[in-house]
C-alpha cells in the first residue's frame, strides 16, 4: 500500500483520513472511502447513534465550508466534498434501514432497495401491504385520529421486529442474501406507509 504524506507538514497518514493527524490540515478527498471509514468507524451494523453524531459534528467543526470561506478555490472544493460526504455518512449510518442497505451493498455489490422499486415478489408480503394501505385509506377518509395512532404504533412495532431480524442476519458473515433483501424491502414499504400516514395527518391540519 502506498504511503501517504500530508502535503503541508509531511507527516504520514492512514488511508481515508480526513484531517492530518499531525498538523490538522484537510487532506485530499478520496471518494472511494467507505462511509464508516470517513468517520473512523469499523464496518458493523451495531453502532452507537450518539457517538456517530458526535464524530460527524467534530469533523464538520473543522472541515465545513464555513472554515474555508477565505481559502483558495481548490481547498474550498475539497471542503465541500468532505463536508457533503460526512453529512451523507451521518444520514445513511444514522438510519438503521439505510445503514443495513449500505452494508448489504458493500457485501453483495448492489442495493436491496433501489432495484425493488415498484415490484414485490413475495405474494404474502404483497397481501399484507395491500391490507395496511386499505386500512390507511379508511382512516384518512374517516379522519380517525385514534385509529391512525394505533396504526402508527403497529408500524413502529413491525419496524422494530424487522430491525432485529436484519441485525441478526447481518451479524452472520455468510448469510443468505435473499432473506435479508426481502426484510429490507418490507421495511422500506413500512417507511413509505408511515410517510403517507404523516402526510394524511398533515392534511387534516390544513383543513
Amino acid at each position, binding site marked *: 500500500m502506498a504511503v501517504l504524506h500530508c502535503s*503541508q507538514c509531511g507527516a504520514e497518514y492512514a488511508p481515508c483520513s480526513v484531517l492530518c493527524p499531525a498538523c490538522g490540515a484537510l487532506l485530499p478527498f478520496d471518494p472511494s472511502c467507505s462511509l464508516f471509514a470517513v468517520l473512523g468507524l469499523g464496518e458493523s451494523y451495531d453502532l452507537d447513534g450518539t457517538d456517530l453524531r458526535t464524530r460527524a459534528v467534530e469533523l464538520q467543526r473543522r472541515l*465545513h465550508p464555513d472554515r474555508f470561506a477565505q481559502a483558495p478555490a481548490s481547498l474550498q472544493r475539497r471542503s465541500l466534498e468532505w463536508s*457533503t460526504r460526512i*453529512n*451523507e455518512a451521518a444520514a445513511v449510518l444514522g438510519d438503521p434501514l439505510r445503514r443495513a442497505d449500505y452494508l448489504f451493498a458493500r457485501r453483495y455489490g448492489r442495493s436491496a432497495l433501489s432495484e425493488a422499486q415498484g415490484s414485490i415478489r413475495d405474494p404474502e408480503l404483497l397481501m399484507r401491504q395491500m391490507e395496511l394501505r386499505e386500512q390507511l385509506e379508511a382512516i384518512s377518509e374517516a379522519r380517525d385520529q385514534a385509529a391512525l395512532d394505533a396504526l402508527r404504533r403497529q408500524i413502529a412495532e413491525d419496524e422494530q421486529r424487522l430491525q432485529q431480524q436484519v441485525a441478526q442476519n447481518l451479524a452472520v458473515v455468510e448469510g443468505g442474501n435473499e432473506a435479508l433483501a426481502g426484510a429490507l424491502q418490507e421495511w422500506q414499504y413500512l417507511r413509505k406507509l408511515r410517510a403517507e400516514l404523516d402526510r394524511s395527518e398533515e392534511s387534516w391540519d390544513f383543513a
Partner: protein
Amino acid sequence: MALMQIAEPGQSGAPHERRLAIGIDLGTTHSLVATVRSAIPETIPDAEGRVLLPSVVHYAADGRVAVGYEARAAAVEDPHNTIASVKRFMGRGAADVGRLAGHLPFEIVPGDGMVRIRTVAGDKSPVEVSAEILKVLKERAVAALGEEPQGAVITVPAYFDDAQRQATKDAAALAGLPVLRLLAEPTAAAVAYGLDKNSRGLYAVFDLGGGTFDFSLLRLQQGVFEVLATAGDAALGGDDMDHAIAEHLLAEFPDYAGDAGFRRQSLQLARGLKERLSEADTASAQLVLPTGESRSWTLQRRDLENWIQPILQKTLTPCRRALRDAGVERSAIDGVVLVGGATRVPLLQRMVAEFFGREPLTDIDPDRVVALGAAIQADALVGNQREDLLLMDVLPLSLGLETMGGLVEKIIPRNTPIPVSRAQEFTTFKDGQTAMSIHVLQGERDRVEDNRSLARFTLRGIPPMVAGQARIRVTFQVDADGLLAVSAEETSTGVRAEVQVKPSYGLDDAAITQMLQDALQHAADDVEHRRLAEARVEGQRAREALATAMAADAALLSESERQAIEAARVDLERALAGTDADAITAATEALEKAAEVLVERRMNQAVRSAMAGHSIDEWKN
C-alpha cells in the same frame, strides 16, 4: 523538500490583523447592516443615527434613485414609481405575484421569468431594486468603518427556495458586495441569542417578518448550531396584517379606494396603527382624503385582533410540520425565540406562548437580532476568532425531477443537512438517442405544476447506443448556501454530458453583466427608451384605428383626400421603423390631422343612420 503553501483555516497571513466583515438583514420592510467591533456585534446607524433602512426604492424621471426614508416619503406623491416589499418578488414569476396584484400601487410587467416592475426610469428587476438597497447599506458600513468590508453575510428566509436565494446573491453581485454566505434568518437569530447566553439544548425560532414567515428548530451544543428542521410560508408576514387593516379603512372610504396615493397612505397608516395598538388599546389615525379634507379614524385593539387572527393562525401549520419532521415534541423545547417586528403584536405573543406552553424570549430587539447574528457569522467566516462557532443548516424544500405523467420524483427530501449531494441514474428510451431533457423542481407536492420550476437542462453528447444501454448519472450538489449545481456523466463510456442550464426564474451571468452595464449607462437612456416606447404605442394605435376606418368607409373620401391620408400613413410607417420618438410623435399627429376629414364624415354618417326612420320630433327631449 518544498511544501505546498496551504493556508490553514482561521489563520490569515498576518494573524493579528482584524478583517472587516458585515452582516446584512435584507428585509421585506426594513433592512439593516451590522458588524463586530471589539468582539461586540453592533448595528450600524446612518448619519442621522437611524439603524433601520426602509426597504423602499423610488425611481425619479430624471434617473435619480432614492432609497429608505426619502423613498418612503415619495410613496404617497408618486406611488407608481415607489417600490416597497420587493423581497416578495425576488425569484418570482408573474403567476406567483398574482395574489398581490390588487394591492400593488406599481405596475408589474407581464412576461416570462422573474417579474419586472414598471417605473418611469424603465422596467426594473427585483434583483436591481434589491441591489439599490444593498448599495446604500454597504456605503453606510464603509462610512462607519472607514474601509471596504471583505465580504458580507446576507440573510434570507429559511424557507427561500433556490431561485429566491440565487436572486439574493445576484443582487449582491450587482451591488458590488462579495457574499461570504447566505444565512437563514432564524439561524442568524439563534446565533445572536446562543452566543449571548452560551445556551445549549433545543431551540425554536419563530420569525415573522414583513413578508415572510420562518420557523426553525435548532440544537445548540458547544458553539455548534444544528438546524434540525425548518418550515415556513414565503408569502406570509406583517404586511398581510397591514393590508387587512388598510382594507377595512378603505371600506370606510369607498369613493377613494381606487386612488393609488390614498391606498398607499392607508397602508402606512395601517402599519402605524398596528404598531401603536401593540402598546395601547385604542389608536387613531389622521388621514388626508384625495379632496384635501382631513379625517380621523379610530381603531380598537379588539377589532384589530379579530382581523389579524386568521393571518396569525396560519403560522402554526409550519410549526407543526417542522416539529414532526424533526421528531420533536413541543414539550422538549428549551426556549422559543421571537424574531421580526411583526412578533411585537401582543396577540401573536399570546398565541406562541399557548402553542409551546412557555413564554417566548424577546430580550434582543426583534428588528436587530437577525443582522447581529449575521455579523457574528461574517466575523467568523473572515477568520476573526470564534473558531468554536459552526452553523449547520438544512435544505428547506425538497428537490425533485419531473417524471412520466407530469409527476415529481423527490431526489433530496426537505430538511436534509447541507451541503448534500445525490446522484440519480437515467437511461435513454430510443435507439441512438443523444440528448435528454431534465426538469428540476423544488417543493413538496406531487404534480409538476404545483412545485417551483428551478431549471430545465438538456444533456447533449450522449454516445449513440441501443435504447436503455446508456447510463447517465446526474449529480445534484447543494452547497452551504443552499444553492444547487448539477453535473452529468454517461458512466459506461465516461463521456461527460454537456449541461445546459436554463434557470426558470433566476438570471444567468449574461443577464447580470447586461444589468451592470445598463446601470453604468447614463440614466437618461432609460428615460429616452421609455419615451420611444410610448411614442410607438401611440403611433401603432393611430395606424390600427385608421386601417379599421378605411376598411369600412374609404368610399366617403375623395381621391385627393385618400392620397393625402395614404402619404401620412407611409410617413408614420417609416417613423415607426426608426428610433426617433419625436419623429414618431410628429408623424402620428400628422396622420391624425390628415384623417380628421374621414373621422368627421363617419360621425355624420353614423348620426344620420341612427336617426333614419325617426321623425325629428322624437329627438326633441
